[in-house]
């Protein structure tokens, strides 16, 4: 009984997050300046993480959590390196 | 943070990620934690056993404080965003506070960014911070007091760090 309710809640949340990701991708495409687009990309990463967590909860496997961990670590580094590259025109 | 606490932190993260508590896995965790500590030269100072309970208690209080800050800042920014008038008074303020250690400056910048409506934009050479804040409800003196409090807790947790800023 409660399981169907949880499942519907998770599917609803998944749909909302996918729509939000679409909105953010649109903002990245039509951003005001380059940092605005970078923030949008960072937010897309966070929302993709949420989508992976929700899929893991719906499918009830923890294999998507491994993907989520990799995405979190790589997305964090990508944001920092891109920000540094945009500001200094070099990475190191 | 001395060697014992660092060791248990690293081994704990490995065990949490691998997710099994078999004996061979425990040995692997210990070996990996030791290897990382040797490679990265972490936790060279030995732990002082007398201060360990106080360090652990301060660590717990610090983590609890970060969690409470995160919840309250999330709620505060959400209220600002949902208000139809968008009541923001942004400002970039300087928080003057002396600090020698790089590590403590960086960690306290992290803590300040988690407090409601603050975002650290830059740190100067003396350890003072420039924060972008959404409203000017707190005065600069209160912010300095908050920063001192954070840094005192961090110093208790990490011990007296003697690494200093490199000359540019």
């Amino acid at each position, binding site marked *: 009984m409660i399981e169907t309710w949880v499942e519907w809640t998770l599917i609803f949340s998944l749909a*909302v997050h996918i729509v939000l990701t679409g909105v953010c991708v649109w903002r990245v495409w039509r951003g005001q300046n380059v940092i605005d687009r970078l923030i949008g990309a960072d937010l897309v990463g966070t929302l993709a993480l949420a989508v992976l967590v929700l899929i893991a909860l719906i499918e009830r496997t923890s294999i998507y959590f491994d993907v989520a961990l990799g995405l979190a670590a790589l997305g964090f580094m990508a944001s920092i390196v891109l920000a540094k590259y945009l500001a200094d025109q070099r990475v190191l | 943070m001395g060697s014992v606490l660092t060791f248990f932190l690293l081994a704990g993260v490995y065990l949490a990620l691998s997710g099994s508590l078999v004996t061979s896995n425990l040995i692997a965790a210990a070996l990996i934690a030791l290897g990382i500590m040797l490679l990265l030269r972490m936790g060279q100072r030995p732990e002082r056993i007398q201060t360990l309970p106080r360090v652990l208690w301060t660590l717990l209080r610090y983590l609890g404080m970060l969690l409470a800050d995160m919840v309250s800042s999330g709620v505060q920014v959400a209220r600002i965003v949902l208000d139809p008038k968008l009541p923001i008074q942004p400002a*970039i303020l300087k928080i003057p506070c002396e600090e020698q250690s790089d590590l403590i400056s960086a960690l306290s910048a992290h803590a300040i960014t988690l407090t409601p409506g603050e975002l650290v934009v830059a740190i100067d050479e003396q350890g003072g911070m420039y924060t*972008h804040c959404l409203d000017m409800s707190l005065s600069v003196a209160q912010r300095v007091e908050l920063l001192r409090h954070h840094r005192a807790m961090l110093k208790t947790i990490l011990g007296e760090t003697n690494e200093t800023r490199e000359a540019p």
Partner: protein
Amino acid sequence: METLFGLIVILAVLIGTAFSVIGVIGFIRLPDVYTRLHATGKVSVFGVVLLLLAGLFWTPVSPGKDIVLIGLLLLAAPVASHAIASAAYRLGIPPQQLMRNDLAEVVEKENDPTPQG
């Protein structure tokens, strides 16, 4: 017990979804880069952390990875927004509606024409 956990999961997922939506709304509504970073770096991350907390109560997702992921997010999100804010200021993107700016004179002093290093 199953029912209680199910209710906790439903509540956490709904609140987390609400925070994600508010984060994206803030990203669109707020006027400039620095204020937008407040919305994305705090509200959205709080939403994801609530979803992960829901995962702690929903078997058989491994709790260890969940907790490590929460710690990683809490550690990484402020650092990323700090890096982006600093890059924005160094690129010279102006903050809007500013009441007071203590950083302006410092940056002007650093940008004098004498070459460095």
